[in-house]
Each structure stands twice: as structure tokens, then as C-alpha cells.
């Protein structure tokens, strides 16, 4: 199970059971904790629906009480190839 975190301005941005594109960061312990990935994913308020868990922070870093489970479907590479 992986732990992830996302920043949103409004929890409504996290529509359930639909494909979303989010920038999420890992909360897994280790040297890479808090590094980001851009992903396609689905989220659910049913914490058992997906294996991975998603924690939410709001615009100024406030931790939200809302919790989600998340399935990462794919990683999205937005960076232009010339910089890779």
C-alpha cells in the first residue's frame, strides 16, 4: 500500500470514480518522501475500494479531514522531451 497526498483548493476537485489527472506526492517513508508525480488516477471516498490511500491538503497547507483511496492508472509526463 502506498500513501499519497494531493493539494487542492476545494475537495470537490476530487470527483469520485472518474479519470482524473492529479499531481500527487508520496508519503511513503524514505529519502524520496514528498516528491511528486503527475498521474492519471481514480479516487474514492470508500477507503477500501483501492489499495493506495490519498490524504488531502488545501490551498494554504491545511490538512483536510477528507480521506480517499486511490488507484494510479498511469504516470503522465508533462515535461517536454527536450528537457528530459
Amino acid at each position, binding site marked *: 500500500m502506498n500513501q499519497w497526498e494531493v493539494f487542492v483548493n476545494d475537495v470537490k476537485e476530487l470527483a469520485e470514480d472518474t479519470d482524473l489527472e492529479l499531481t500527487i506526492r508520496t508519503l511513503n517513508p*524514505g*529519502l*524520496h518522501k514528498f516528491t511528486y508525480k503527475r498521474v492519471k488516477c481514480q479516487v474514492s471516498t470508500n477507503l477500501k475500494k483501492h489499495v493506495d490511500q490519498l490524504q488531502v*491538503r488545501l490551498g494554504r*497547507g*491545511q490538512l483536510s479531514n477528507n480521506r480517499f483511496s486511490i488507484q494510479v492508472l498511469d504516470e503522465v509526463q508533462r*515535461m517536454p522531451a*527536450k528537457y528530459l
Partner: protein
Amino acid sequence: MAAPRSNREFIEACIKSGDAVRIKQEVDWENEAGAIVRRACELAAPAPFMERIKDYPGFSYFGAPLSTYRRMAISLGMDPAASLPEIGKEYLKRTNGEPVPPVLVDKKDAPCKENILKGADVDLCKLPVPLVHEGDGGRYVGTWHAVVTKHPVRGDVNWGMYRQMMFDSRTMSGAVFPFSDLGKALNDYYLPRGESCPFATAIGLSPLAAMAACAPSPIPEPDLVGMLAGEPARLVKCETNDLEVPADAEIILEGEICPDYKVEEGPFGEYTGYRTSPREFRVTFRVNCITFRNNATMTISNMGVPQDEGQLLRSFSLGLELEKLLKSQGIPVTGVYMHPRSTHHMMIVGVKPTYSGIAQQIAQLAFGSKLGPWFHMVMVVDDKTDIYNWDEVYHAFCTRCHPANGIHVYKNTTGTPLYPFATPHERKYSIGSKVLFDCLWPVDWDPVNDVPTLVSFKNVYPQAIQDKVLANWTAYGYPPVK
């Protein structure tokens, strides 16, 4: 006492004078180190030198490097007990001289080249990048550092302290505002051409190099370091681009800024004492090479409520640079001071009020200058008011600033997204507002019959009476006044 030439010499000098403490127990990079630095700032306590960091053997942290005037005095090679006016006078003396160009040293003489990571070995997570505040948008690589760039046409070098957040192992995002030197170069040159901009980030600088990176001076920063230190700064060529970086810095990150690609940055605890600027897609820094000293020390500035080095040093340098500007225009200023607790938002200017409109002239120059976006209040007092004494300044403000005639508001100026009072729209587009508090008696008032007389011990009693009372003060039964 000579000015410390490196972060290491500075730490040793601070420990020797009692202005830094060695923390030998292991400290967590996630929040704990940041919390120690924050508390040290709020207590004006000695700077923490954290020698053991969880997960990162061999690295250390030095926090709150310049968050007291004592440490600022040490950085200039002065007595730590030097007063603020003495430090300011010394800064003006050194920075009014001839520029002192840097010298280029060989790689073998540059400690920052002791370890070099390139290609697949580049991973920012190999450095002890701290999570400075709970709830920050990321781990911040650059909180007390210099981002080194060179203008592509003019060739002038810029060292700026643009905060940098680790986005992933090779990518950082940073707050580079459009009115900054780097922001102008990106928007004017690199973005229209779709070219990347070479950069280097130097972390763990000598305190004077950090001071130069923070100062809004027109003098190129490497020359300014030499002027402040009294000897040339030692620079060395980067591994992967043509930039030159401080040879004695602890850590160097080399790479390119991607002007046409942005990633999220923030939120972050800021010098205003709030987390204000929104999480936004901001400037992207791609890292291609990391070099660092053996047993490298990462510097941490923890911005928040007063007082930290962001407030203290910016207040110091903004005030003194404005004083230079106003004097260059022939305005009879007697001093300029920003109290750090204003989070460098209020400029207090002392002036001989010799002609009408002088306060407006000062405000227009101040707000219209390159320094202007960083503060939004100017208070002008006369030359008899001690600008360093808040009690006197506050009294002048509350009694001489006419509510209808003395307060002048300037709308739709340049601002920053960091202003806590700004509307969300203003933050997004760096729109500001400014205000002048004119605390001068109008020059068209009769000085004898219209200007009120200040009723104070110093002002209303004959000198002979003052001397007598002072001489007899303890005889009257009062304890001595320090």
C-alpha cells in the same frame, strides 16, 4: 576580526562568540529541524548547528544564519555587540567604494567540487532537503542560497535568493516574480526564443555572499561580496555550464531553467509571517549536476513571524539601498530604517523638511524604484525624530500625520503575491497598493505660531536644568538609568 570567508568559518565564529550552538543529537529533516530553527528565530536564540541528520549521515544543517544583528556584525568581521547604526554605517562605507571583482580559482582549489554527481547519479533526495514547515508544498532546497544566472545579452551576473522547492529527484520549482532580474530575463529573452536558461544554485554560502544575494544593490553580487569582505570572492567554473559559483559553498546545483514548462510550487511559510502566496505553476529548474563538499552543511532559513534573516537582512539592505538612492537625488535624508518586525513592509525615512512635497518625492522615488515591490508603506519623519526609536516614530505618526492631508494612497502599483492583505486577484497578478504617511509639519506653517512645540525633557527645558536633573537623578532617589 576578519569577515568569515565561508559558511564554515562563520559557524566557528558564531560558536566561539556564543551566537550558535552545536546540536549533537540526531535531528529529523521532516519538520524537526525546521521547528528548531523557527523557535530559535522567535527567541532570537543562538543559531542551531545540527550535526546529525536522520537518513543523511555526513551532512549537517546550519539554521537561522543571520537572524540577529549580532550574527550580522560577525559576518562583517565586526564586534558582535556593534549597534545597528554602526553596522549600517559600516555597510554604507564598504559598499560606497570601488567594486572588488572576484577571482577565478582552479577546480582543485574549490572545496565545492569534492563530490560530483552527474547523469543518472543526480538525485536531489541524496541531499538532506528539509521539510521546513508542516503543510509546506514540498521540501525546500533553497531557503538561504543564491541562484546564479548570467544575462544572455548584457552578460551581467545575477545572484538572487529565489526560493526553490524540490518537485522530484531532478526538478525544482521556484518563485521567480516577473519584476525580478531573473523574471525579466526569462520573460524578455528566454521565453520568446524557447531557449533554456543556465543556472546554478549555491547553498551554504559565506554570510556576505548570502547578504549580497539578498541585497537589492545595482552592484553585481560577486563584486559586492568583495567590497563587503575587503577581498575578492573566490569563484569556480561550473561543471556543465559557463557560470561561476562560490568555490567555498557547501552545495552547488547546476542545470537549466525551462521557461516554457512550469510545475506547481508552494505553499510555503513566508517572511510576512503567513503562508499567503497560492500554490501556482511556477518557474521550473531542471538539475543536471550536483557538487558538494565533504560533510556538507545545508543552510536553512525558516521564514515566519519575526524575526528571521529574511526580515532582518532585507530590512537592513532595503533601507540602506534606499538611503543611497535618495541621497543620489540630492534629498536631504538623515537616515532610512526598516524595522524588521514590519516584515520589511514599512520604510521609515528621516529628512530635513526644507521644501514642500518632500515626503511625496521620497515616496514616489521609493515606490518607483527597483526596491519598490518589496514594501508598501513609507513613513516620513523629520530629522529630529530618531528613526531607530519606534516610540518616537509612533508618536510622530499618531500626532503629525494629518488623516486627510498626510496619507497618500497609490493604487495599481507593482506588488507581490506574498502580501497577506492583497486580494486573491492582486496576488495572482502581483498587483500592489502603496501608502505614504507624511509625518512632517507643513512648510507653509509658521514655525513659531503654527507648529506645536514638542513637550519632552530634551526639548522644553534649558540645558542647565537638564544637566542639573541628570546629575542629581540618583540623589533624588531614582536608580541609575542605563
